[in-house]
């Protein structure tokens, strides 16, 4: 896994979409992998909560027959927390303030999820460019484009 490339992707996303305040990447079981968060956020518990929330949301999508799971977004009066699946083995958390353009967020996040998926599964730490689309990236695309 290329640490630099992952950090670049996460920072890039925060700079691209006005309103993103924090991002984090975790394994599907809630183990934190990378955090670009302010001091006020505890990324460890955030990762655990995101894993639990995504698991429940996936089940909810399945039992209600809503097609392929895409993402969950939790809204508060001062912003939102979006949880995305990165393939089957990881997840990404994006926190935003109330000004964030949700459409733009999803638009920019989808391609980033594919790239982050490739970085996470790439065993060569020095590999700078993501490899050709593999099974995981395929899973991400499916998550993003299918569904009802």
């Amino acid at each position, binding site marked *: 896994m290329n640490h630099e490339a992952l950090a670049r992707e996460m920072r890039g996303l925060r700079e691209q979409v006005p309103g993103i305040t924090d991002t984090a990447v975790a394994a599907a079981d*809630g*183990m934190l992998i990378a955090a670009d968060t302010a001091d006020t956020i505890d990324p460890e518990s955030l*990762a655990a909560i995101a894993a639990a929330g995504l*698991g429940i949301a996936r089940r909810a999508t399945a039992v209600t027959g809503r097609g392929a799971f895409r993402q969950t977004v939790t809204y508060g009066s001062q912003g939102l927390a979006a949880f995305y699946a990165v393939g089957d*083995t990881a997840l990404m958390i994006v926190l935003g*303030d109330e000004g964030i353009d949700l459409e733009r967020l999803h638009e920019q996040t989808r391609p980033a999820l594919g790239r982050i998926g490739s970085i996470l599964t790439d065993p060569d730490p020095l590999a700078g460019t993501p490899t050709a689309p593999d099974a995981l990236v395929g899973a991400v695309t499916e998550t993003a484009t299918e569904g009802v």
Partner: protein
Amino acid sequence: MSGIRDSLGRVGYDLLSRALSECQGTRATGKLRVSGKPGGVFHLRDGCVVAVESPGAPGPEARLLRSGRISGEQWAELLRETGGTRWPEAGLIAHGYAGAAQLRVVCMMAMQDAAFAVVAGDVEACDPLDAAFEPYAPVVLGEAPGRLLQDAARKLAAVAALPQPVRPDRERPVPAPVPDEIREQLPLPQKELLAHADGRRTARDIAFATGLGAYTVTVGMARMLGEGLLELPEEPESAAPVTVRDLPTGALRQRPSGAPPAIDPTVFSALSSAVAAGQAPAPEPRPSSGPPPGASAPSLPRREPGANAPSLPRREPGASGITETLAPERTGASWKGFFRLRHRIWTPDSGT
């Protein structure tokens, strides 16, 4: 300074100006979506702008909520009362959260600030006017588009004329090493700005965090940079580094095709172990079955890292904090409780 003036984006500004004056000419009503960064939506009535929404500037709701004038719960209650409106103006006045005149000022300031944010950013394109007229927190008397844009451009020029200009959505400064006695003497708005400038936030971000206008914070930030109270880190990444952990296996393993979906079993076992680690309330002491009181609750069998599981270290059980709401059912206990309850409710003369 000249960089800012050049990046005003003459082309984008002209595009917006042309689109808006066309709307004014035809006395159009509807919404004009401006794509770009941050972009926004201009709401027009009879050719006059009555509201502007932009991700680049806090709207009236954010201004009221973030400034602490009204709490999130009170806001939700107002929305419930008014049934469906996004901007509960009458409720705000009726409950005394704000006066009618104050709300008019807040709406006008939010509109001008959003126009400033759109003009200060990059304007890529203007969509054709959408006839749907659903302005958020409109002002009573619309503003002529030309005047609104001129005001925004004048503000942008004012920022650019400062010795250390910043763009609302670009620079992310950090507090400069300033002696405490000087810091103590600063006026409150400057102290607040210092507290929020952590190398991660732009002027726009601080505006949202405080409920102030994007223009106000941009000017404040530029002035404080000029006075040496704030500084821009040489390498923006160094101020807010992304922490990345080493994975024990070097990389996540892909799940072989045909393997069962990963998240559900893992997460549920993680959740249940988290729940088991917390204090799950035992419904009633039952001597014959179940764990003796005080003994640790049985946790579900953990999945051993095998061919199907990504071999990752386990996180701390209970880190999600979900320990009380999702307590697992003890075998039989809940049903027993149900029948007992039913028995208690039912009486021969109750008619059921």
